[in-house]
């Protein structure tokens, strides 16, 4: 079984080819088997003997410090694959209905991109060293770009995709530098912290910082958050799978995988925690200001990823992974039920135009309520337990940051309540017709809702998840949920949620400020493109100028070289 786990990344490729060749009555149905088998493989491995497997083809890339083709199938990878398989299976089924209005060629392309994404994501989590990690890392970035700009005829989709590429490029550059600067033989993700591998000028801090930059870019943390809200230009199933549940969590995964390195560089760990807390609070505040339904949810994702970063920074990688697992369920649920609403209203996403949909869309209403309560941490639901784990760890590691994070749960309640009551309660703002969702749109919500409720019990009270993960997520001890900290955090969240309901729909739907997206990104882009235009204008096409530049160029280079 463990051998199969190593090759799990290839499971969606047959579907990709078959869908591309046009097999299947309904475009994309040929791809369905891939994520299903992936889920089965991962779960079977977890329930079975859990023997880790490795594949190492040395000297695949002889010019790198560690150029092996190195795959590692262990508990952490299996858990990530299980989450990937579970959410992607739901999203695939959902997409069959959601994308049904596209022309068949477009639907096939959509599913091929999805298959490519799942394969890349699986490589990412199965990677044994940095080189292989980068294959998955760049692959998911490419898939994200292609899917964000899937609706090319809609304005702004290509720009949103390019924003995602730009943010990813920052992280990729950091990862590239990390790959080449480690000493020869280093690059295995589990041994980056050994003394032999820290023999570079900056030591553990340098390597850990580079990985932190890469992770922050992928997970939209700190100043690199800007691309994720823009990524909502893509189809909603993509927002659920890639930009909420799996790909954006890859940064968290990377930090968990290399948690021993982070432990060897305490200042970077504190920076990680601080970055996470700041993003958690900033994302929550930003969500309150959104006029667009999906963007409000996107900032919620930014904020929740901040919780996970904080968990890793607190030295509790297990808590981060636990929250990653529960968050995947309830955030995918929130996005997919939001998709039902948007689909029913012909693509309408503005909060001002949505409202009072409780009776018209009871399924989406119930699903969104369950997701919201799991998110705010109603005691007993999944989000409560995993957030509790992070707060517990913070209480021991850094009380100040933990208290800030604790206050953040109130924001969580406020913003998700604002979205929930704004969309489903109150009066209908207009009498636009509502298409009733097909069953195919609603059924995938059921397993996700179940997951959002019960995922927490994977850990509490029996400690199943932590014992499965074992060493791979730090020295995970079963979470005790002993402190009242987490419990009160949940109550605070519910209080915020209720407060939003009490304030009523009109106020809630009114954005505090429109257009909160990072102005500096636009400024940098304008400057950059302006500079590029001026540089291109130097190429005037006139031979005389070119000859002048060539002759003087040669002369100057000669002089510089001779002086040196």
């Amino acid at each position, binding site marked *: 079984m463990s051998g199969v786990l190593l090759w799990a990344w290839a499971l969606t490729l047959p579907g990709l080819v078959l869908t591309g060749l046009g097999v299947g009555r309904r475009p994309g149905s040929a791809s369905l088997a891939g994520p299903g088998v992936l889920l089965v493989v991962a779960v079977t491995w977890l329930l079975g003997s859990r023997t880790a497997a490795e594949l190492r083809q040395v000297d695949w890339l002889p010019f790198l410090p560690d150029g092996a083709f190195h795959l590692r199938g262990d508990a952490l990878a299996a858990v990530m694959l299980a989450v990937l398989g579970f959410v992607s299976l739901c999203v695939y089924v959902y997409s069959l209905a959601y994308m049904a209005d596209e022309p068949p060629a477009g639907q096939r392309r959509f599913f091929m991109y999805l298959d490519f994404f799942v394969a890349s994501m699986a490589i990412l989590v199965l990677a044994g060293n940095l080189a292989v990690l980068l294959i998955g890392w760049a692959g998911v970035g490419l898939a994200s770009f292609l899917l964000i700009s899937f609706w090319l005829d809609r304005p702004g989709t290509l720009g949103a995709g390019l924003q995602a590429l730009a943010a990813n490029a920052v992280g990729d550059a950091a990862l590239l530098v990390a790959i080449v600067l480690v000493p020869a033989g280093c690059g295995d993700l589990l041994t980056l912290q050994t003394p032999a591998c820290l023999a570079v000028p900056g030591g553990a801090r340098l390597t850990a910082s580079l990985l932190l930059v890469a992770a922050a870019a992928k997970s939209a943390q700190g100043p690199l958050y800007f691309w994720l809200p823009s990524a909502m230009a893509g189809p909603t199933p993509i927002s659920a799978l890639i930009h909420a549940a799996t790909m954006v969590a890859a940064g968290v995964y990377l930090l968990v995988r290399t948690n021993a390195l982070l432990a060897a560089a305490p200042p970077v760990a504190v920076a990680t925690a601080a970055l996470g807390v700041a993003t958690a609070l900033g994302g929550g505040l930003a969500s309150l200001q959104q006029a667009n339904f999906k963007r409000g949810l996107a900032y919620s994702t930014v904020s929740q990823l901040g919780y996970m970063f904080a968990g890793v920074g607190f030295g509790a990688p297990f808590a981060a992974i636990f929250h990653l697992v529960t968050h995947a369920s309830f955030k995918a649920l929130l996005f997919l039920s939001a998709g039902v609403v948007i689909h029913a209203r012909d693509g309408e996403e503005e909060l001002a135009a949505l409202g009072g949909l409780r009776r018209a869309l009871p399924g989406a209403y119930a699903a969104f309520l369950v997701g919201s309560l799991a998110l705010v941490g109603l005691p007993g639901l999944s989000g409560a337990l995993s957030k509790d784990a992070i707060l517990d760890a913070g209480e021991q590691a850094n009380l100040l940051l933990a208290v800030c994070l604790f206050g953040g749960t109130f924001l969580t309640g406020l913003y998700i309540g604002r979205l929930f009551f704004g969309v489903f309660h109150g009066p209908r703002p207009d009498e636009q017709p509502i298409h009733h969702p097909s069953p195919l749109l609603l059924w995938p919500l059921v397993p996700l809702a179940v997951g959002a409720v019960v995922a927490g019990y994977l850990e509490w009270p029996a400690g199943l998840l932590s014992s499965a993960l074992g060493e791979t997520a730090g020295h995970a001890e079963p979470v005790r949920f002993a402190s009242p900290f987490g419990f009160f955090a949940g109550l605070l969240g519910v209080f915020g949620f209720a407060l939003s309901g009490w304030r009523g729909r009109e106020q809630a739907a009114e954005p505090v400020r429109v257009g909160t997206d990072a102005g500096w990104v636009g400024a940098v882009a304008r400057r950059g493109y302006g500079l590029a235009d001026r540089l291109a204008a130097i*190429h*005037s*096409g*006139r*031979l*005389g100028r070119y*000859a*002048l530049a060539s*002759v003087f160029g040669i002369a100057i280079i000669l002089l510089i070289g001779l002086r040196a």
Partner: protein
Amino acid sequence: MLVLGTSAALLALGSGGVLLRRNPVAMLMSVELMLNAGNLLFVLAARVRGVVDGQAAALIVLVVAAAEAVVGLGLALALFRDRSRVDVDDPAEVRG
């Protein structure tokens, strides 16, 4: 030193011609002048070093220069055939 000085002066003269002349033919002639600066250096260096390779090289470069002139004039003729004004800066459609 004198060797270097003379040939370098010739090279500078040729480069100056390339940069200042607007007529393609005059520009190509200036390039020939630059090539001959190299030739001068070959011949004089051959005397300094006492080997005849330099003279041979100068002959070869002369042949190359002739070939270059043929191609250059051909291209110039094709490009400027239909133009009333002959200025190397004029054809500037490929730019930006």
